[in-house]
């Protein structure tokens, strides 16, 4: 075997109080796609940040093409041919696509920026991705999936020998992911080494050759051939014990009951037209669609954050007038678990108590609005137990929790509010396998308790697992609603057909 392109040896990295990486080893060879797997908080992103000079490690060494290197900042790793797309989006929103792509090494002539070259270089990178967009478009006009593609183009700008991708497919559609994989395979054929992080094991098996698994910062499976380790085994290695497979419960919804939430031919300021939906108590209605189909916006319209201009919104059969999330909760018992937990779901700098109790102070407050601390803590404790949120104490700040636990906090806040209708928006983006399962069980449990659940998800498999009925949306209209038979193949065909039937014909 030739010298690997990138080799990390015995890397240890501690954040204050957390050992994020503990003697980790990783070898990336040219011409292979290497999967890096592990649960939330296992240390995957930390490893990538070490490999790209964003963070330095406490100990360990890094070899690029056999030569020892230490990156003390990100530009050094770029120079060495390591391209990266981090887990979070990192773009300059006020700059154009082109300038973002060349930012780390802007082309100059006589010491001044050569704008012509900036655009042509950017076009070259975009062409590699088959990404058809004018390089002079400002980033602020792009969707988050498009921004993701721009970041990939940026990673291709400098001569990239190694490409590190941290959950690149978490928030883009399947079609866009397919495009991405095409590029990855092309790079692989050109001899580049690719590291691929994902919680979606299906795509890992479809595209990766080798695998490394991290658990609690330790390498528990190192540079193994993926083909030797079947799906269930990998899951067990990640989790550290054998995980029973998920059993879908027998679900039956009482169709005799009237719907609690009903939309009749609704048009909104966000741009929806003629949307009709209904959800019964105890039912999970899935709202499926591609990214940008207007599902989150529809949730916002129900919550009064967008205005309903025509049609009717009925709660318990009566027309509802909702102008804010507060109205939605207090007057109609509607709760909303947001899709972007870090920005909107949790208060990163506030402790667990305040995070979960946020929706309940109205109930807890005595005369003069005084909240009794012991009541507050007891209530929070109840939900921490019920959802199995892993915290060291209620005084821990939410920002210190792993992604999955933050998501649970965000959900707990709404369960504590005791809603009758719960809208859950993309609950499992970037969530590991085990947490995902516990979420599924939780959601079924809530429906069994009689909650009406409107579940928004872009993950068709998840939708087919969870929902009782699936409403399919496409460009702000409803393409149709289908009863879920839970047979993946036939259901996915039905749903895809609905989307295509609605697409404008030319």
């Amino acid at each position, binding site marked *: 075997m030739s010298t690997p392109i990138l080799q990390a040896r015995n890397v240890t990295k501690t954040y204050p109080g957390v050992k994020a990486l503990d003697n980790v080893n990783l070898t990336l060879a040219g011409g292979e796609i290497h999967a890096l797997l592990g649960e939330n908080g296992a240390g995957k992103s930390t490893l990538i940040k070490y490999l790209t000079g*964003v963070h330095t490690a406490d100990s360990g060494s890094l070899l690029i093409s056999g030569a020892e290197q230490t990156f003390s*900042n*990100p*530009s050094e790793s*770029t120079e060495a041919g390591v391209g990266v797309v*981090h887990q979070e989006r*990192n*773009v*300059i*929103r*006020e*700059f154009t696509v082109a*300038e973002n792509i060349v*930012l*780390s090494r*802007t082309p*100059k002539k006589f*010491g*001044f*920026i050569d704008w012509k070259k900036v655009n042509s270089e950017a076009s070259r990178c975009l062409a590699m991705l088959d990404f058809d967009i004018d390089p002079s478009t*400002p980033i602020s006009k792009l969707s988050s999936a498009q921004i993701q593609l721009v970041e990939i183009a940026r990673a291709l700008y400098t001569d990239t020998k190694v490409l590190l991708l941290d959950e690149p497919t978490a928030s883009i559609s399947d079609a866009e992911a397919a495009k991405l994989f095409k590029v990855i395979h092309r790079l692989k054929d050109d001899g580049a080494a690719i590291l691929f992080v994902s919680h979606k094991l299906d795509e890992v098996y479809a595209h990766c050759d080798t695998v490394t698994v991290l658990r609690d910062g330790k390498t528990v499976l190192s540079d193994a051939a993926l083909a030797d380790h079947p799906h269930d085994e990998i899951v067990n290695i990640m989790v550290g014990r054998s995980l029973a497979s998920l059993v879908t419960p027998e679900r039956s919804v009482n169709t005799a009951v009237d719907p609690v939430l009903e939309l009749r031919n609704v*048009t*909104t*300021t*966000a*741009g*929806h*037209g*003629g949307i009709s939906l209904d959800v019964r108590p105890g039912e999970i209605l899935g709202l499926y669609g591609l990214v940008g189909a207007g599902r989150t916006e529809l949730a916002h319209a129900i919550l009064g954050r*967008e205005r309903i*201009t025509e049609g009717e919104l009925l709660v318990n059969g009566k027309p509802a007038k909702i102008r804010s999330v507060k109205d939605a909760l207090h007057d109609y018992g509607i709760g909303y678990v947001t899709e972007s937990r870090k920005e909107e779901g949790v208060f990163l700098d506030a402790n667990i108590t305040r995070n979960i109790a946020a929706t309940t102070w109205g109930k807890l407050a005595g005369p003069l609005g005084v909240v009794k601390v012991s009541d507050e803590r007891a209530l929070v404790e109840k939900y921490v137990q019920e959802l199995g949120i892993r915290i060291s104490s209620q005084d821990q700040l939410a920002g210190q929790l792993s992604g999955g636990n933050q998501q649970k906090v965000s959900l707990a806040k709404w369960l504590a509010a005791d809603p009758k209708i719960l809208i859950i928006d993309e609950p499992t983006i970037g969530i590991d396998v085990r947490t995902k399962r516990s979420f599924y069980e939780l959601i079924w449990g809530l429906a069994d308790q009689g909650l009406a659940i409107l579940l928004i998800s872009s993950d068709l498999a998840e939708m087919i697992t969870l929902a009782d009925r699936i409403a399919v949306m496409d*460009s*702000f*209209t409803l393409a149709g609603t289908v009863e879920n038979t839970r047979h993946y193949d036939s259901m996915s065909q039905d749903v895809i057909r609905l989307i295509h039937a*609605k697409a*404008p014909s030319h």
Partner: protein
Amino acid sequence: MKLKLPASLGSQYLVLLATIVIGAVVLGISSGGNFFGPVSMQTFFQFLAVPILIGLAQMITLAVGQLNLAIGAIGGVSACLAAVMVADWGFNPWLGALVCLVVGAVAGLANGILVVVTKINGFIVTLATMTVLLGVQYALVNTRTISADNWKPVAALGKASVLGLPAIFVIAIVVAVLVGLAFKYTTTGRHLLASGDNEHAATLAGISNDRSLTIAHGASGLIAGFAGFVSFASLPGVNQSVGGDWLLSSFAAPIIGGVSLTGGTVAVFGTVLAAFVVRLVDSARAEFQLAPAWVNLVIGAVILGTVALGRLRENRESTKAGMLRARVATHRINAPHMAETAAKEASL
């Protein structure tokens, strides 16, 4: 420099230009044409230099997402130090002029380094340095007014004309053009904007935010020192009130000109135009003999109005886009064959 403006910004410049023209015409009429007389025009442009410069100085700190409350104090101290050096200590007047720039740059760099090293919010740092500098300014001149007769050659520059315009106004415009070019064509300029827009992303692209902050504060101080020099050259005398009324206009010009407070944008042209508006308000006060307090009131209201109108327009545009989309959506449901017409309409 190629002026390719986004449509919304372009219309903002048009509004500003229209405001300036209408304001000038109204002033011209109400003064019976005197406003357009040579003497009056000369003063108008002469005292336009300072609003332009302090607007630019503030704009540069806004570009990196910082505020600089010390601009007036920096300008004041630099002018007062120059005056004291020339009048009391017998230095060459031109050396005094140079001192203005040096003091400005040093004070600005000090701000930048304090922000970087202590990691204290720039607002607080400049609030503190402003207080310190105001104390220094007072210590320098006390209650005296040092007459410009002490530095006649420099004062002559303050009154000189180039191509019929006051020299100091021309200098201010040159500074503005240089700043504009620096933000468009140098990597340093782009790096300031990148740091101001998204610090983390800038770091990942190999940009040093510390460097950006230091440079921005340094440049801001330098230009504030330049404004101090302009005051030194053009005022009949220098006292502790120099720079005292710069705070509001330093924010007014860039903000009315379209610069966002959150960093990542600059608008040199807009800032210069807005400085015209600020100057017009001041002229109007002189014309109608109102109390100086009214200038503040009007400028405050204009700032609020501009920013609020901008917000309103944004909201209206997104609502309009949504309504159009809804029309397309409803069409597609009710009459599929009409969808295309509606879609075309929407794309217009």
